[in-house]
């Protein structure tokens, strides 16, 4: 068995365990796990820009927030809107906003990119805060329906059931993560990394750097919008907390703690932040201090994040096993 097939097997098992969660997790933990799933997509979409594209976005909550607000608003105002259309509307709206912002974002890099994303995020935050007639301002939006999922030939599935909604989230997020996974393996994905490593050379080689960045930002915005849309449907409430600077920082924390630049890192980071955050917040009021201190320690001493720790242990195990079995599992 090669390492590659072994990895596939492990990923399949992890996927099955995620799908089986409702059978062994309590309702409280299942709800936390639902949060892990959409935050994982949020952090993964940021990682496409930061980890693979090499640009720190300080305003990724803009897309998360647009997805959340558009889904909430369309469920509130369009009678009889289905679950999937509401989800897609949130994602597509975020993608459109992302495409529009990209027109300006492709011209800047480094600190200027971080600052321009911050400006866009704050601009949308200010609109969400001040346009009370539509967004509800500080009070937020609530009381929108959570429609059942209609599947042809099978019937409709009640989404107010925690387990049902969890499975729905797992499938949606799973599909989106596969999309992101596929993206970094396409020629476009390879060009994104090339741009991060050496933009000048990429241009010399004939890559249309502006177009590559445009696609990258738009796709990442769409994925973050889907995450925000799931957030809105799960929480059944959206306020400026979905689009403020702290939400953007959350995505950065998850990404870095999990492992920036590694595809699976941010998912681990999302899991860490949600579960450890929940656990710490019940122990101490200062839990954000510990998260922040842990984050600083990561940046100082462990830039590979949690994922590098996991991978290190995994490959060590593989080597140990292959030594025992006469190198049969060595790649």
């Amino acid at each position, binding site marked *: 068995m090669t390492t590659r097939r072994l990895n596939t097997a492990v990923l399949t098992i992890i996927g099955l365990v995620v799908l089986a969660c409702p059978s062994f997790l309590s309702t409280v933990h299942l709800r936390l796990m639902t949060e892990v799933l959409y935050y994982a997509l949020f952090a993964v979409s940021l990682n496409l820009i*930061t980890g693979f594209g090499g640009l720190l976005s300080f305003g990724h909550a803009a897309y998360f927030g647009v997805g959340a607000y558009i889904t909430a608003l369309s469920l509130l105002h369009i009678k009889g809107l289905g679950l999937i259309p509401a989800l897609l509307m949130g994602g597509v709206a975020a993608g459109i906003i992302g495409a529009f912002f990209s027109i300006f974002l492709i011209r800047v890099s480094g600190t*200027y990119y971080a*600052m321009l994303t911050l400006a866009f995020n704050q601009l949308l935050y200010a*609109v969400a805060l001040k346009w009370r007639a539509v967004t509800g301002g500080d009070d937020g939006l609530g009381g929108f329906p959570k429609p059942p999922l209609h599947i042809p030939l099978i019937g409709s599935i009640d989404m107010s059931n925690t387990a049902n909604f969890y499975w729905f989230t797992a499938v949606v997020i799973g599909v989106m993560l596969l999309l992101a996974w596929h993206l970094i393996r396409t020629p476009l994905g390879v060009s994104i990394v090339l741009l991060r490593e050496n933009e000048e050379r990429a241009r010399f080689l004939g890559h249309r750097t502006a177009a590559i960045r445009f696609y990258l930002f738009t796709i990442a915005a769409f994925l973050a919008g889907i995450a925000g849309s799931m957030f809105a449907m799960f929480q059944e409430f959206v306020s400026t907390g979905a689009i403020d600077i702290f939400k953007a920082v959350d995505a950065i924390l998850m990404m870095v703690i999990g492992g920036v630049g590694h595809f699976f890192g941010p998912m681990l980071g999302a899991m860490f932040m949600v579960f450890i955050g929940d656990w710490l917040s019940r122990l101490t009021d200062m839990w*954000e201090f510990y998260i922040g*201190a842990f984050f600083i320690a990561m*940046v*100082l001493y462990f830039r590979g994040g949690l994922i590098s720790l996991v991978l290190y242990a995994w490959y060590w195990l593989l080597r140990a096993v292959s030594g025992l079995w006469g190198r049969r599992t060595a790649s």
Partner: protein
Amino acid sequence: MALDLTTILITCLHGLVYGVLIFLVSSGLSIVFGMMGMLNLAHASFYMLGAYLGYSVLGITGNFWVSLVLGPLLAAAVGSLTEHFLLRPVHEAGHLFELLLTIGLSLVILELVKWGWGTEPLPVQIPPSLTGSVQILGSTYPIYRLFIFFFGLAVLTALALVLFKTNLGMIVRAAITNPVMVSALGTDTPLVFNMVFALGAGLAGLAGVIAGPILGIYPGMATVVGMDAFVVVVVGGLGSLLGAVVASFLIGELQSFGVLLFPQFSLILMFFIMAVVLSIKPQGLFGEKG
């Protein structure tokens, strides 16, 4: 609303006072950017730290002037330690990790402040020697605000004189332009960088101490002023002191008149201006390089 001359004058003065405060915060941010090539996202935390430390010093000594000196000095000391123990080790890992580190630092400082002083806003009094108001064109204006304005202007002038007219300032500017060469000529550039970072933190802390009585001391203060300072350095031009001066007063007046004339749109307008400047001229109005 009928706008008479007095209202315009008072609003304009308010804007100038806020502009001076924002300048004290953004000047340090801008100089540190020019030096290290990265934006310190925890810079406003030093503003908050200065305010809280100044408050405690005031509580212990009962003297505003002592707190005005000690608050910023303590903030500068924290800044110096931050540069030495946190930022320097990640420098070789690149700007991305430096930015990330300052995000973590701002979280930690915020939580420490909440832990040490509580989450409630702290009551701060205007020092007795600076209470009262003066008559300006048939209207009264608080002395304390005028004090902020002139004190800030004095600090600004001193800063410009040191930076552009003294030997020390020349070394700092040279170290910003070409650290390797200055280092080869026998100057301890890491020490210069550390001192400049501490100076920036101290200036922000100073702004915190003097802003306390009019803007309040509460855990959210860093976010509010931090955002304004980012807008200022971006609009004025990262690394440009002149840009920071001009943009500070621009944003100060915009905030001041915005609250009066179009409260719904002042916040939106501010970030709109930031986005437009970054899109059209990323190096800002007075920035040198793109």
